Protein backbone atom coordinates (compact mmCIF):
# COMPACT_ATOMS: atom_id res chain seq x y z
CA UNK A 1 0.00 0.00 0.00
CA UNK A 2 1.31 3.40 -0.89
CA UNK A 3 0.60 6.96 0.16
CA UNK A 4 0.76 10.21 -1.77
CA UNK A 5 3.45 12.69 -0.76
CA UNK A 6 0.80 15.43 -0.50
CA UNK A 7 -1.19 13.32 1.97
CA UNK A 8 1.89 12.79 4.15
CA UNK A 9 2.57 16.51 4.14
CA UNK A 10 -1.05 17.31 4.96
CA UNK A 11 -1.09 14.96 7.95
CA UNK A 12 2.20 16.26 9.34
CA UNK A 13 0.96 19.85 9.02
CA UNK A 14 -2.30 18.95 10.68
CA UNK A 15 -0.40 17.62 13.68
CA UNK A 16 2.31 20.29 13.64
CA UNK A 17 0.67 23.38 12.16
CA UNK A 18 3.85 25.50 12.07
CA UNK A 19 5.91 22.79 10.39
CA UNK A 20 7.97 23.37 7.30
CA UNK A 21 7.76 20.05 5.47
CA UNK A 22 9.81 18.88 2.49
CA UNK A 23 9.02 15.45 1.06
CA UNK A 24 11.07 13.52 -1.47
CA UNK A 25 9.83 10.39 -3.18
CA UNK A 26 13.12 8.49 -3.08
CA UNK A 27 12.42 5.84 -5.67
CA UNK A 28 9.47 7.33 -7.49
CA UNK A 29 7.37 4.36 -6.36
CA UNK A 30 5.11 6.17 -3.88
CA UNK A 31 6.39 3.93 -1.12
CA UNK A 32 9.81 5.19 -0.01
CA UNK A 33 9.90 8.78 1.12
CA UNK A 34 12.26 11.10 2.91
CA UNK A 35 10.82 13.98 4.90
CA UNK A 36 12.52 16.98 6.39
CA UNK A 37 10.40 18.59 9.05
CA UNK A 38 11.23 21.85 10.78
CA UNK A 39 8.98 22.91 13.63
CA UNK A 40 9.25 25.01 16.76
CA UNK A 41 7.53 22.13 18.57
CA UNK A 42 10.85 20.24 18.35
CA UNK A 43 12.82 22.79 20.39
CA UNK A 44 14.41 21.24 23.44
CA UNK A 45 13.27 17.72 22.51
CA UNK A 46 15.41 14.66 21.82
CA UNK A 47 15.47 13.22 18.31
CA UNK A 48 13.37 10.30 19.50
CA UNK A 49 10.73 12.68 20.87
CA UNK A 50 10.84 14.76 17.67
CA UNK A 51 10.27 11.71 15.48
CA UNK A 52 7.51 10.50 17.82
CA UNK A 53 5.68 13.80 17.26
CA UNK A 54 5.80 13.22 13.51
CA UNK A 55 4.64 9.60 13.91
CA UNK A 56 1.76 10.81 16.08
CA UNK A 57 0.77 13.27 13.36
CA UNK A 58 0.73 10.35 10.90
CA UNK A 59 -1.83 8.64 13.13
CA UNK A 60 -0.63 5.07 12.90
CA UNK A 61 0.05 5.06 9.18
CA UNK A 62 3.80 4.77 9.68
CA UNK A 63 4.74 1.11 9.49
CA UNK A 64 1.40 0.31 7.84
CA UNK A 65 0.35 2.14 4.66
CA UNK A 66 3.57 4.05 4.85
CA UNK A 67 6.40 1.59 4.58
CA UNK A 68 9.50 3.76 4.58
CA UNK A 69 9.82 7.37 5.61
CA UNK A 70 13.30 8.64 6.32
CA UNK A 71 12.92 11.42 8.82
CA UNK A 72 15.09 14.40 9.52
CA UNK A 73 13.71 16.74 12.12
CA UNK A 74 14.94 20.00 13.58
CA UNK A 75 13.77 23.16 15.29
CA UNK A 76 14.05 26.46 13.39
CA UNK A 77 17.47 28.12 13.82
CA UNK A 78 16.14 31.12 15.69
CA UNK A 79 14.65 29.15 18.57
Amino acid at each position, binding site marked *: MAMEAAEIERLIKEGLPDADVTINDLRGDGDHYAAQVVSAAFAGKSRVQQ*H*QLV*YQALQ*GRMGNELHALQLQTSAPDNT
Partner: protein
Amino acid sequence: MSDNPVFDRIQSEIDGNAVVLFMKGNPMFPQCGFSAAITQALTMMEVKFKGIDVLADDEIRNGIKEFSSWPTIPQLYVKGEFVGGCDIVREMHESGELKKLLDDKGVEYAS
Protein backbone atom coordinates in the same frame (compact mmCIF):
# COMPACT_ATOMS: atom_id res chain seq x y z
CA MET B 1 5.73 -6.19 36.23
CA SER B 2 3.47 -4.47 33.74
CA ASP B 3 -0.03 -5.30 32.54
CA ASN B 4 1.36 -6.59 29.30
CA PRO B 5 3.44 -9.81 29.58
CA VAL B 6 5.30 -8.96 26.36
CA PHE B 7 6.52 -5.74 27.96
CA ASP B 8 8.06 -7.81 30.77
CA ARG B 9 9.89 -9.96 28.24
CA ILE B 10 11.17 -6.89 26.40
CA GLN B 11 12.18 -5.22 29.65
CA SER B 12 14.15 -8.28 30.77
CA GLU B 13 16.02 -8.36 27.42
CA ILE B 14 17.04 -4.70 27.64
CA ASP B 15 17.88 -5.03 31.34
CA GLY B 16 19.97 -8.15 30.74
CA ASN B 17 21.99 -6.95 27.74
CA ALA B 18 23.90 -3.67 27.46
CA VAL B 19 23.11 -3.22 23.76
CA VAL B 20 20.03 -4.76 22.17
CA LEU B 21 18.86 -4.42 18.59
CA PHE B 22 15.30 -5.45 17.78
CA MET B 23 15.61 -6.25 14.11
CA LYS B 24 14.30 -8.19 11.13
CA GLY B 25 16.55 -11.21 10.73
CA ASN B 26 19.62 -11.77 12.84
CA PRO B 27 23.01 -10.01 12.95
CA MET B 28 24.52 -12.60 10.57
CA PHE B 29 21.62 -12.38 8.12
CA PRO B 30 19.60 -9.18 8.44
CA GLN B 31 16.37 -9.44 6.46
CA CYS B 32 15.85 -5.73 5.88
CA GLY B 33 18.09 -2.90 4.72
CA PHE B 34 17.40 -0.75 7.78
CA SER B 35 18.25 -3.55 10.18
CA ALA B 36 21.36 -4.28 8.12
CA ALA B 37 22.49 -0.63 8.33
CA ILE B 38 22.46 -0.56 12.13
CA THR B 39 24.04 -4.02 12.34
CA GLN B 40 26.83 -2.79 10.08
CA ALA B 41 27.45 0.33 12.16
CA LEU B 42 27.63 -1.66 15.38
CA THR B 43 29.82 -4.34 13.79
CA MET B 44 32.22 -1.71 12.43
CA MET B 45 32.58 -0.29 15.91
CA GLU B 46 32.93 -3.81 17.33
CA VAL B 47 30.12 -3.20 19.76
CA LYS B 48 28.85 -6.41 21.32
CA PHE B 49 25.08 -6.51 20.97
CA LYS B 50 22.20 -8.91 21.12
CA GLY B 51 20.05 -9.03 18.03
CA ILE B 52 16.44 -10.07 18.54
CA ASP B 53 14.68 -11.25 15.40
CA VAL B 54 11.14 -9.89 15.48
CA LEU B 55 10.22 -11.93 12.41
CA ALA B 56 10.57 -15.03 14.58
CA ASP B 57 8.28 -13.70 17.29
CA ASP B 58 5.03 -11.92 16.45
CA GLU B 59 4.36 -10.98 20.07
CA ILE B 60 7.64 -9.10 20.31
CA ARG B 61 7.19 -7.68 16.82
CA ASN B 62 3.93 -6.00 17.80
CA GLY B 63 4.77 -5.41 21.46
CA ILE B 64 8.01 -3.54 20.86
CA LYS B 65 6.19 -0.86 18.85
CA GLU B 66 3.87 -0.14 21.74
CA PHE B 67 6.63 -0.48 24.33
CA SER B 68 8.61 2.39 22.81
CA SER B 69 5.79 4.35 21.08
CA TRP B 70 7.80 3.79 17.96
CA PRO B 71 6.09 2.34 14.86
CA THR B 72 9.03 0.80 13.03
CA ILE B 73 11.79 -1.75 13.34
CA PRO B 74 14.81 -1.75 13.85
CA GLN B 75 15.00 -0.29 17.34
CA LEU B 76 18.25 0.12 19.25
CA TYR B 77 18.48 0.08 23.06
CA VAL B 78 21.58 0.91 25.08
CA LYS B 79 21.58 0.18 28.80
CA GLY B 80 17.81 -0.02 28.81
CA GLU B 81 17.30 3.27 27.00
CA PHE B 82 15.65 3.52 23.58
CA VAL B 83 18.15 5.26 21.30
CA GLY B 84 16.21 5.30 18.05
CA GLY B 85 15.61 3.66 14.71
CA CYS B 86 17.71 3.57 11.58
CA ASP B 87 17.69 7.30 10.73
CA ILE B 88 18.60 8.43 14.23
CA VAL B 89 21.31 5.82 14.71
CA ARG B 90 22.81 6.67 11.32
CA GLU B 91 22.85 10.39 12.13
CA MET B 92 24.40 9.67 15.54
CA HIS B 93 26.99 7.35 14.00
CA GLU B 94 28.02 9.95 11.43
CA SER B 95 28.18 12.81 13.93
CA GLY B 96 30.10 10.88 16.59
CA GLU B 97 27.18 11.09 19.04
CA LEU B 98 26.86 7.32 19.08
CA LYS B 99 30.41 6.98 20.44
CA LYS B 100 29.67 9.62 23.03
CA LEU B 101 26.54 7.77 24.09
CA LEU B 102 28.47 4.49 24.40
CA ASP B 103 31.16 6.29 26.41
CA ASP B 104 28.56 7.84 28.70
CA LYS B 105 26.90 4.47 29.22
CA GLY B 106 30.18 2.66 29.75
CA VAL B 107 29.80 0.35 26.73
CA GLU B 108 33.00 -0.86 25.06
CA TYR B 109 33.72 -0.39 21.37
CA ALA B 110 36.85 -0.58 19.21
CA SER B 111 36.86 2.63 17.18
